[in-house]
C-alpha cells in the first residue's frame, strides 16, 4: 500500500504560491485559513530557500496523540485525517504539530477557535467519499478520484511532490544526484523520523 507523503524540493521552490491558491481553489478554503503556505528562510540572503509547508501527515502523528477526543484517524494510505464532528477545537493539535498545520476559524466562543481545519492530502474526511457533506467539511477527495493533491499537481516548478514516500524520495534523490545539490527533504526528519539519504 502506498504511504503518502509530501516532499518540497526547496531547490526548485520559487515561492510562487500556486500550491496555496490551488488548495484554496480545490477545497474552497475560506479567507484566513491557510492549509498550505510557503515560508522563505534566509530571505534576501544568498542561500535563501522557500519551502511549501502543510500538514506532513506524520508517522505517529503528534496531533493524533494529543487529541483529547481522539478525532484523528489514519487512512490506509497513511494520510492523517480528522473528524470535524468530533473535534472540540481545543487547540492541542496545534501545540503539538511541528509544522503549524492545524488552523482554526475564529468562530468559537469568545471568538477563539472553531473546529480545526487542516490539509487533508486532498483525501476528504470521514463522510462518504465524494459526498457533498464531505466536500463541505473537508474539501475535495481527489485521492478517491485517483488523483493526487492539487497543490503538488499544479506546482509551477514541480518542486512540491506528493505521492508514495518511496517514489517521491526516489525522484528527489535522482534530482539531487543529477544536479549535484540538495538542501534536504524539509520536514522529513521531523515528520517521518527519516530522511532521503543521498
Amino acid at each position: 500500500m502506498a504511504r503518502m507523503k509530501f516532499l518540497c524540493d526547496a531547490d526548485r521552490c520559487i515561492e510562487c504560491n500556486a500550491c496555496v491558491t490551488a488548495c484554496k481553489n480545490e477545497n474552497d478554503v475560506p479567507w484566513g485559513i491557510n492549509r498550505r503556505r510557503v515560508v522563505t528562510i534566509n530571505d534576501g540572503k544568498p542561500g535563501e530557500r522557500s519551502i511549501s509547508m502543510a500538514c506532513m501527515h506524520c508517522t505517529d502523528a503528534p496531533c493524533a496523540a494529543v487529541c483529547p477526543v481522539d478525532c484523528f484517524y489514519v487512512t490506509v494510505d497513511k494520510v492523517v485525517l480528522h473528524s470535524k464532528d468530533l473535534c472540540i477545537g481545543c487547540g492541542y493539535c496545534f501545540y503539538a504539530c511541528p509544522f503549524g498545520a492545524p488552523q482554526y476559524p475564529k468562530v468559537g466562543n469568545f471568538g477563539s477557535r472553531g473546529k480545526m481545519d487542516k490539509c487533508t492530502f486532498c483525501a476528504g474526511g470521514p463522510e462518504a467519499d465524494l459526498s457533498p457533506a464531505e466536500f463541505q467539511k473537508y474539501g475535495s477527495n481527489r485521492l478517491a478520484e485517483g488523483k493526487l493533491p492539487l497543490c503538488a499537481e499544479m506546482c509551477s516548478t514541480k518542486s512540491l511532490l506528493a505521492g508514495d514516500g518511496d517514489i517521491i524520495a526516489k525522484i528527489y534523490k535522482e534530482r539531487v544526484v543529477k544536479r549535484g545539490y540538495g538542501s534536504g527533504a524539509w520536514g522529513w526528519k521531523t515528520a517521518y523520523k527519516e530522511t532521503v539519504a543521498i
Partner: protein
Amino acid sequence: MLIKRKSADASRGKLQAALGGLSSGVMDRRSFLRRSGLVAGGLAVAGSIQIGAVRKAEAAGFGPATGTKVVKNICTHCSVGCTVKAEVANGVWVGQEPAWESPINRGTHCAKGASVRELVHGDRRIKYPMKLVEGQWTKISWEQAISEIGDKMLEIRAKSGADSAYLLGSAKFSNEGAYLFRKFAAFWGTNNVDHQARICHSTTVAGVANTWGYGAMTNSYNDIRNAKTVIFMGSNAAEAHPVSMQHILAGKEINRANVIVFDPRMTRTAAHATEYVRFRSGTDIAVIWGMMWHIFKNGWEDKEFISQRVYGMADALKEIEKYDPKTVEDITGIPEAQLKRAAETFAKVKPATFIWCMGVTQHTVGTANVRAICTLLLATGNVGGMGNGANIFRGHCNVQGATDMGLDVGNLPLYYGLVEGAWRHWGRVWDVSYDYLQSRFDEVPAKGGRPARNRKANMETSGHTSTRWFDAASLPAEQVDQKDNLKAMIVFGHGGNTIPRIPDSVKALENLDLLVVADPHPTNFVSLAKRKNGTYLLPIATQFECDGSRTCSNRSIQWGEKVVEPIFESANDYWVIYKLAEKLGFAGDMFKNIQMVKGKYGMEPQAESVLREINRGGWSTGYTGQSPERLKLHMEHQDKFDLVTLRGAKGSPVENDFFGLPWPCWGTPEMKHPGTHVLYDTSLEPINGGGAFRPRFGVTREETRPDGSKVNVTLLAEGSWPKGSEIKDGYPEFTMGMLKRLGWDKDLTPAEAATINSIGGNSPDGVSWAVDLSGGIQRVALMHGCVPFGNGKARANAWNLPDPIPTHREPIYTPRVDLVAKWPARPDERTLRIPNLHTTFQKAAIEKGVAKNFPIILTSGRLVEYEGGGEETRSNKWLAELQQDMFVEISPDDANARGIKDGQFVWVSGPENNSKARVKALVTERVGKGVAWMPFHFGGFYQGVDQRGNYPKGTDPIVLGESVNTVTTYGYDPVTGMHEGKVTLVQIAAA
C-alpha cells in the same frame, strides 16, 4: 461512530484501485511517477510519456461526474501561456484540473493561474454598465451606454478631431480583439492607439527589430532547457513568469547550466542562480559593454558569426573601448573579476541565452539597453540556435499578440508600419479604399513652428504614446503635435496606475470630456479621478468568457475556448467594439468580411472569422498559416508535442508542426508550414522552421573609410545561409521582380500570378512577399529553400536610432551626479508628437540637489500574486489574501538609520510634485544599501488617502494600496516613449 478508513480493512475506495496498482493494473509506476511530478526531475524519461493516455485510463474508471464538461483555455495572467483546464457543470465553472498535456506548463500553474476560476465567480466584477451622474454611479443599459459614448465621441471629433480620442487597448485582448480594436482606430481615423506593450517591452520590440528584423523572443521557454548558460537581467522570472522556471531550473539541473542573475535586488530568481550580480539600477549598458570589453580583449568573440552575419561590430567596438573595468566598476558597482567571469562564461559555455524584462526596458535608455544586449548576443554568436537567443519574457497573456496586431502608435497590424503601402495593403485586405481610410484622418494645422500636416501625412504619423497621454491632455495645445489636445480616453483593459507621474494624470483626468473604462474591473482610472460626469464603466468579459487565440511570449498561438458565458451583464470585446463601430457609422465597412454569429446580446463578430481575416493579411510576420482549424487541432493534440523541441510527434495529426505554430508560420494554412520555434536558425530549412536575419534596412550602406573615400558595404549575409538554400549567400527580400530574375516566377500558379498582378497594377515587379495576398511569393521562395524576407546581417550599428551604438547615460534622477558630466542624458528632443526633455529635467534635478534630499534609489517590480495594475488580481480573494499591504523594501542599514522597523508604515516621498506614498516597510537584505523597491500592482490609496469610496459600490478590490507610480518621475525613451520605471530617487521616513 465508526470512522471510515480508520482500519486497514475499511473501505479502501477507488484510491486503491488507482494507487494499489503500482505494480500492475490501472496506474503503473510510470504513470504514478508522472502524477508525482517526477518528469521534471530531469530524468531520462522526461517527455517520453504521454500524459493524456494515463488521464484517459483514469477517467474511464472514475472521471468527473456526468454532465461535467472539460474546456481548455489559456491563463490570462502572463505570457507563458499555461493551459487552463476548466470543469464546467451547468454553465458554472466548478473545478480546475492540471492540463498535463500542455507542453508549456505540463499541468502546473503559479498562484495566479491556480486561482483563475475565481475570476468568473468574481463578485467584485463590474456587473452592469454605469455612468457618473453628478458624482454618483448610476446603472444604465448597454444601449444607452453605447449611444451616449458614441454621441460624445462624434461631438469631440467634430470639434477637436479624431486624434482627440485616445484608444487605449489591452494586452489582455485576444488576438482577434486586439486586431478589431486596431482596425477600429484605423476606421475612426487616428493612430492614437496603444496598449501595455508601451510600458513593458516597446523598447525591446524597437531594439530587437532594429537589430535583426523582428521584435520578439527568439526562442521559447521550453528551449531554455537546452541552454548551458542563462543570464537574467532585470527579470525576476520566479515571480513574473513562474512556470517558465520549470524549464529553466530543469535545464539548470540537467545541463548543470550556469544561471547568472544581474539585478539591483536579490530576487527569488537570484536565489536559484549559480551567480548573483548586484549592480546599480540604470547602468545596464555599462554592464554589457563592460562584459564586451573583456570578451574582445580576450578574443572570446565568435569571429565567424560576426563576419558572416553581423554588420557594424567594429563601430560598436569603438564605443566599447571606453568601458574598461575600472570605469565599469565605478559606474555599475560590479567588481572586475565578477564581471569578467560572467563575460567569459557567457562567451564560452554555449549555448548561452540572455533573458531580460522590465528591468532592462523601462528606462530612458531602454531601446539602447536592448540594443547593447543584442550586440552581446551577436558578438558571442548566441542567436539563432537551440538553447541560445534573446529570450525576452513578455508580460501579459497576449502582449505579444496585441503588439503583433498593431495596438501601437506606429503600426498597422503585423508591423507594416504606417507608410502608404501599409495602408494600401490593409485596405486591400479589408476591402475598403485607400481614399476612404485617408478621409477618416484629421488635417493638422501648423503650430508651434511645425508645418501643417494633410490627411495623408497625418495617417502616416505615429500617435501619442500611452505613457504621455496625460501630457497630451494637459500640455499647451501648441506643444501637442495634432489638431487639438486629447479630450477623450477610451480605455479597454488597461490600468491607470501602471504609468509614472500619477499626480499629473490625476490632473489630466479632470480635464477630459469623456472617460470610458471598459474592463472586467473598475481600474485606477476610475478611483483616481475626481470626475462628476462624462465617465462610463462598461463590464467586459474576461478571456475565459470568450473564444479567441492568444500569442504567448514564444510566439506560439493557442486557441482558448469560452469556458462560460460572460457573467452578469458583461459582454465580450468583439461585441462592444462592433456596437461602437455601428454607432459611429462604420461597422458596415469594418465588418464587411467578418462573419457574424449569435452571441449573448445578439449578433457579434465570430472569433474564427476575425482570425481568418488576420491570416489573409498577416504576411509580413507569418501570421497567415495559423488558421483557427490548425490552432484548435493543436489544442486538441497538445500531448503530441515534444517538451524540448515543441515538434509534433511523427504519425500524429500535428506531425512536424511546432506547438502553436509560432510565427512566422509562412504561406497559407494549406501549405502546412510548421511555424518557427527558433528565429533566425540557419540549421533548419526555412520551410521546416529555419530562417536568417532579416535585411530590413537596405541591401548596402555607404560608409566612409579613414582616408575619406566612400564604400558601399553589404547588409546581406556573407557565407551563411539556411540549410537547403538554393541561393548560397545573402539575398534581399523576395519580390515579384526578384522571382523573375531568378527565373522562379514560373513556379507561381496562375491564380497566384493573377493576384500578384492585380496588386501590382502597373508595376507587378514591386509586389513583395509581404503584400502578396496569394502567398505565392512566399511559397516559391520557401520551395527553393529561401526565407521570404531575405538573408541579411544583424546590425550592431543601427544608424537610424537616436543612439546608433548604445552609450551609457546616467538616469535623469541619478544618485551619481558626478558622472553626469561624462555620461549625460540625451539632449532635449521631441518624441512622437510631444517634447521629451531629458537634459532639462536632469539639469534641474542636479541644481535642486535632488540626490542629497532624496538619497535612495527607488526601483519597482512584480509580485507573483498580482498582475499589472492589479485590480483584477487584488479582487481575487485567493490571491488578495496573500499580499494584503503595499510595501517598500528597504535595506536594514537604511531602515536603522531612519529608525524604521519591519512592518511599520513609512512615507516614501518623490522628487516631483511633492509626491508621497504611505506604505509599509519591509526591511530586508533583498535590496542593498541605498536602494528601495516597491511592487507596482497597487492602487486605491493616493498620497495616504483611502479611495475605496470612489469605486462603484461592490466593485472595489479587496486589497488597496498606494501606487508606486505616485512617486515615480519623468523620463522617456527617445524611440518608443517608454517611461523610466526603474530608477528614480526617493526619501523614506517613518510615518
